[in-house]
């Protein structure tokens, strides 16, 4: 079973999965490896990272030296295909016009979805992160705890390969011995930041990223991941041997032709396809989940995004993993006499509890990093170090004016220059030009750095999505309309970020180069961090949640959600690893329930 066209779909599948990113990829992997017959529908085109990734292309080969444009918003060589903040023919709307009330929705249309370009930062939620309301009375607790997901975090980390270290810090879980790959050595700017931040009490430790810092142990890992299943072990072992370790060049955001980092297209799908149990149907934009006469979900209807032809596929179980908002949209569009408000929406909670990550950045210039002896700082194509949230004790003692926390991502070093590499340089050079400017460029290159906070938002009633009553996409599918408003919790957190980042830059002997900006304006707009989760929140009560603790919808027992939709809170930790762990757990449950004949 391969990547197929509509005429090649089977009459029925055990499981139909909508979406091919982290959640869809993990679900397809787990289910197909266990023997279920699976179809994945992807709204975008087929994509082959091995053939299509621009691995060593320098910026001078690209239009505009690879700069960001409206059509390639993260730069020409970013892996994203047919996506961005806006997409022709696929509008979304915002209920309010003010800038601070906007939600910007990043989408893509390609096999593998947003896993192709993501930052590969793979952090576990900690025990506190599942029970936030219990700790501070705000937001919503998850019906599951860290112990429920811990074994799945282990499995996902083993499967995809994550580098990092175990530091034993509060609410920053260790992985079991031998699970993580060794972290790469820190760059000089990262070491300087670590050294100086320590004086401020801010820990800087190895980042956790889904990049193979060495080859995976294909002889040992498959048996740990698929105990008692020699066939799955053999297939996974082969797939692991097909992945090369990082060769310490090219940014991960381009994707990875040697499969050294995780994207579903290089890690989940090759072994899942090798089982013969998986079909992938690209260019299939799902309209709605269809029901049989008894009201049971029996498949999905879709439109061929290229030809406009309508299609339908049937499955015993339906898994939505289209991304939090797109999944909510499909449910809201799945209206019937039985479910006039949309499927799985008896509670009225579909689209509610929408969250993103709190983001703000501060840049600086550090004289100590000027004129450094030239050396290669490309590294693992992303961050080697980060700072986990560190003020739990102070928060407990009531010393902070905001709840929850943020982690710090930062970028230093001498990367390959881009078109904007020296924008703003004249502020440091007194307006030099001529030979002096060349000297200045040599001196300042590599001395700029930037810190970004990634913090936890508290869900609030002002943040949700719904169907726009008027606007439709080019296929006639109702568009999503966002409602957004940050609360004082997030704004105060940003003020704290700004102070911390300024303190670190000054402790490094540097100066802040960012314009002083009030926190309410410095906070990134909703959606900008592309960590949107919630909208199909899990719970223990069908009246106040969309799914149970297995991400199984209350209203249709053979319908499951496998993206960030069921998240009850959005910890500062980047959500992708948790999406995968949750999807694996959900898939295990689906297999059990199918075996028992319950679904």
């Amino acid at each position, binding site marked *: 079973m391969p990547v197929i066209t509509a005429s090649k779909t089977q009459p029925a599948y055990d499981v139909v999965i909508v979406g091919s990113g982290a959640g869809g990829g993990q679900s397809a992997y787990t289910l197909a490896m266990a023997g279920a017959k699976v179809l994945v529908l992807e709204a975008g085109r087929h994509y082959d990272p091995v053939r299509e990734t621009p691995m060593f292309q*320098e*910026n001078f*080969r690209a*239009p*505009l*030296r*690879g*700069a960001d444009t*409206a*059509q390639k918003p*993260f*730069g020409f*060589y970013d892996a994203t*295909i*047919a996506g961005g903040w*806006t*997409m*022709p023919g696929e509008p979304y709307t915002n209920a309010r016009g003010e800038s601070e009330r*906007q939600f910007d929705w990043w989408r893509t249309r390609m096999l593998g979805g947003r896993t192709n*370009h993501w930052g590969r930062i793979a952090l576990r939620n900690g025990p506190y992160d599942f029970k936030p309301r219990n700790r501070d009375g705000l937001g919503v607790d998850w019906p599951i705890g860290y112990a429920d997901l811990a074994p799945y975090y282990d499995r996902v980390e083993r499967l995809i390969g994550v580098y990092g270290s175990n530091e034993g810090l509060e609410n920053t879980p260790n992985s079991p011995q031998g699970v993580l790959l060794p972290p*790469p*050595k820190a760059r*000089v700017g990262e*070491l*300087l930041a670590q050294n100086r931040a320590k004086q401020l009490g801010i820990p800087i430790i190895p980042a956790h990223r889904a990049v193979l810092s060495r080859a995976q142990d294909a002889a040992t890992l498959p048996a740990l991941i698929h105990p008692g299943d020699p066939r799955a072990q053999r297939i996974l072992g082969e797939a692991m041997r097909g992945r090369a370790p990082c*060769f*310490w*060049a090219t*940014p991960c*955001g381009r994707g990875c032709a040697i499969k050294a980092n995780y994207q579903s297209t290089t890690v989940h799908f090759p072994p899942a396809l090798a089982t013969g149990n998986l079909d992938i149907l690209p260019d299939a934009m799902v309209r709605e989940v269809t029901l049989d006469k008894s009201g049971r979900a029996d498949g999905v209807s879709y439109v061929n995004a290229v030809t406009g032809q309508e299609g339908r596929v049937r499955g015993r179980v339906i898994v939505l993993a289209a991304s939090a908002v797109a999944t909510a949209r499909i449910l809201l569009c799945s209206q019937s006499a039985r479910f006039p408000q949309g499927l799985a929406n008896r509670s009225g909670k579909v689209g509610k509890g929408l969250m993103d990550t709190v*983001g703000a950045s501060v840049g600086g210039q550090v004289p*100590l990093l000027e004129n*450094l*002896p*030239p*050396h*290669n700082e490309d*590294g693992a194509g*992303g961050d080697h170090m980060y700072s986990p949230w560190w003020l739990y004790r102070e928060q407990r003692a009531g010393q902070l004016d905001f709840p929850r926390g943020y982690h710090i991502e930062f970028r230093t070093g*001498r990367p*390959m*220059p*881009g*078109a904007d*590499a020296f*924008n703003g340089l*004249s502020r440091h050079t007194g*307006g030099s*030009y*001529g030979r002096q*400017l*060349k000297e200045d*460029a*040599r001196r300042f*290159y590599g001395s700029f750095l*930037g*810190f*970004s906070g990634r913090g936890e938002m508290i869900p609030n009633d002002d943040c949700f999505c719904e169907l726009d009553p008027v606007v439709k996409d080019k296929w006639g599918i109702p568009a999503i309309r966002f409602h957004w408003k940050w609360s004082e919790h997030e704004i105060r957190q940003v003020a704290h970020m700004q102070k911390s980042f300024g303190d670190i830059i000054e402790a490094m002997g540097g100066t802040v180069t960012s314009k002083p900006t009030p926190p309410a304006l410095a906070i990134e707009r909703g959606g*900008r*961090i592309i960590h949107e989760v919630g909208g199909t929140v899990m719970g223990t009560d069908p009246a106040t949640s969309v799914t149970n603790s297995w991400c199984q919808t209350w209203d249709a027992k053979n319908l499951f959600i496998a993206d960030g939709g069921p998240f009850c809170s959005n910890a500062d930790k980047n959500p992708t690893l948790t999406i995968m762990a949750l999807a694996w757990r959900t898939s295990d449950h689906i297999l059990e329930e199918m075996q028992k004949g319950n679904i």
Partner: protein
Amino acid sequence: MERRDAIKWMLAAAGSAFLLERRGLARGGPGPAPAWVGEGSDPNLLKDYHPGDLWPLSFSPAQRRSATALCDVILPADAQSPSASAVGVPAFIDEWISAPYAWIGSESGPGSDREVILGGLDWIDGEAQRRFATDFAGLIHSQQTAICDPICHEPAAEPERKDAAKFFNRFRELTLGGFYTTKEGMLDLKYIGNVAQSTFTGPPPEALRQVGLL
């Protein structure tokens, strides 16, 4: 943070479509819609592109002459690397200001600075004519710096030269970006990377020593 800091813009799709259309009309006058649509959201990432491949360039012969001269005043050849014009920077700047993107709200995106750059190039030629009775490219170096010195540092520029200083600063940024993204520019900066390696060794001792960590 890698991706997000770069993005400072976010435009309403409807707004940019309108502006695109308007610019097309402004450039081509009434008649068929322009054939170019930008680089697209699913371009071939593996082929090499050159200025003019995807959309028409804008410089008049006189503007190209001035831009070439100004590029080399800003980044002249020295012992380590060639001049900006020798590695194609004027064509890059032309490509940049001609890009069919409407950058409402962005101070630095492709196409946003078209008026600033084209107006500035006309201004600098006018200034050369006014003071030295020839165009900027025809001046000797000391005459060129006599024009550039009062506008090279925006905060220090006289009020009547603020616009010229703004132009000069933006032109300088584009020249820097265009130059240091070339092979020669990267070599000059001693960017060492973009090569496959079997190990990542981290910073050398002399780098650690310089920052006081060894």
